[in-house]
């Protein structure tokens, strides 16, 4: 169970301008695991994450979450899947400027069918958990970068997703904030038995991962090989 990716390929363009970004990616992330994906700029990390998140079509291969090949379902169902079963965390928090902190979460919950009362209870719980209990009524523009990102993380957790996809979630944070946020993401994944896949370049965060994959030339290699390469050099 968990996330299984088999021989995933992705090309952009056709004919002369065709570029194959992913040539056969195999990744497995078990429930409760947090896996880090690294790789040079332009290696295709965001592309891979977008495909897994159902935002971008693939050229070939299989992706399944807990045994279900969810990528081939209808657009509407996929949107609903993104709402309920996938939690996205982006490089910048992307909070909605005109919504109070608590509403950022309740909004997501209500869309997924929660009653506004239950959504409020759950949102408060989540926000207290990350130490933002005193900022429930604040608008994003008065929050610090770290606070915003913490709200965004809890927004991703609001509907108890089975999978968390994060693209450089700590890029806009200082070192201390980055570790805090990282711990929070990892702990949540462990406690909630979700699947976590995170893109990051920040070596200080590698210690939090169960495994580290490197994307290079369209394929992934895992940490062990990476270490071998280090030794050869």
């Amino acid at each position: 169970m968990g996330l299984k990716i088999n021989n995933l390929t992705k090309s952009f363009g056709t004919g002369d301008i065709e570029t194959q970004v992913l040539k056969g990616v195999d990744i497995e992330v078990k429930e409760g695991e947090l896996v880090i994906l690294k790789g040079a700029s332009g290696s295709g990390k965001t592309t891979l994450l977008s495909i897994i998140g159902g935002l971008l079509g693939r050229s070939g291969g299989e992706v399944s979450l807990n045994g279900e090949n969810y990528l081939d379902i209808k657009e509407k169902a996929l949107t609903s899947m993104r709402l309920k079963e996938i939690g996205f965390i982006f490089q910048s928090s992307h909070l909605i400027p005109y919504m109070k902190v608590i509403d950022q979460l309740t909004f997501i919950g209500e869309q997924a069918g929660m009653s506004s009362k239950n959504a409020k209870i759950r949102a408060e719980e989540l926000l207290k958990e990350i130490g933002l209990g005193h900022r429930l009524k604040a608008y994003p523009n008065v929050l610090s970068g770290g606070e915003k990102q913490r709200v965004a993380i809890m927004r991703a957790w609001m509907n108890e997703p089975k999978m968390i996809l994060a693209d450089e979630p700590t890029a806009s944070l200082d070192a201390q904030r980055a570790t805090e946020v990282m711990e929070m993401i990892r702990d949540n994944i462990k406690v909630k038995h979700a699947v976590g896949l995170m893109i990051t370049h920040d070596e200080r965060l590698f210690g939090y991962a169960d495994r580290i994959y490197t994307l290079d030339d369209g394929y992934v290699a895992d940490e062990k090989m990476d270490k071998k390469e280090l030794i050869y050099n």
Partner: protein
Amino acid sequence: MKLALKELKFYKFKYVLVTLILFLLAFLVLFISALAQGLAKENISGIEAWNQEQFIISEGVDDSLTQSDISEQMDQIEEVTIEGHNIEFSRNTIDATNSNIDIVFTNTDENIAPVADEGRFPETSDEILLNYKLTGEGYEVGDTVKIKDSDTTFEITGFTEDIMYSHTSMAYVTDGGMDRLDSSSIAAVALPEDTNGISEEINNIEDVKMVSNDVIKNAIPSYQAEQQPLNLMIVFLFIISAIVLSAFFYVITIQKSSQLGILKAIGTKNGELVKTILVQVILITLVGVVLSIGIMFTLNTVIPVSMPFYLNTSLMMTVSGLFLAVAFLGAILSLVRIVKIDPLDAIGGE
């Protein structure tokens, strides 16, 4: 819905501003419409008061009621139909306190004559009922009006609102009253409708033809000349409103493209976002239009009777409805944009 209202509340200034613009546009549309209707009334209300569809008039008078004289053909017309209502016309000038006033004296049978809004209808040959507007000249029931350059006088028995023909007030007198005027003649025979298809027979009578209500109205030169430019202005105001609204919402939509992309990425349906814009557009339009209607009603109570200004609820309804339609039209561009936004743009970048 929640999204829409929270956004309106947060960006109050921006949305209040566009509501204000819309309010001014709606106000201008309503004001010009009221003016157009007021002017229309000054031209055709006398004809509309009869509530008749067909008119038998003279040929070769440019369909003008005041120039038409079918007195000589009446025998022939009555051979075809006796259902019609004879309308007598006589254009005269009366001596008023400060100036001379042109008046179209009329007489017709009581079946199609309007009712008196104040006082009563004339019963004897020296009594007269005037268009209400002449109260603006100081006339009251019981006063006497005198025909210019003659000894003929009439005593006012009442007033009726909105009986005008080509910017000239009309006055009703009795058969006998009509005989006391020099140039009286039968101008037309009015019919509620062409029931028995007699138009051909009527048209066969020399120098006589049958025309519709609309032909008579449109033949009044000032009517067309006034309505056309005003209607053009109204049409342009609607177009401007549509453009202002679509530009405003389009710019706002573009501004929040990445935000909308994020919302889509985390699972917000297109429908939800489309609804947001629609709710906002409807709210802004309604507030703007309702405000302008409020101002119009206030204005209506202070505008003097002499001013051509006429406000009615059906006009308000039409204008409000049209404004909503125009607002939807303006929103289309933004809606298309929203649906096209790719959630992928949200990932990876800023």
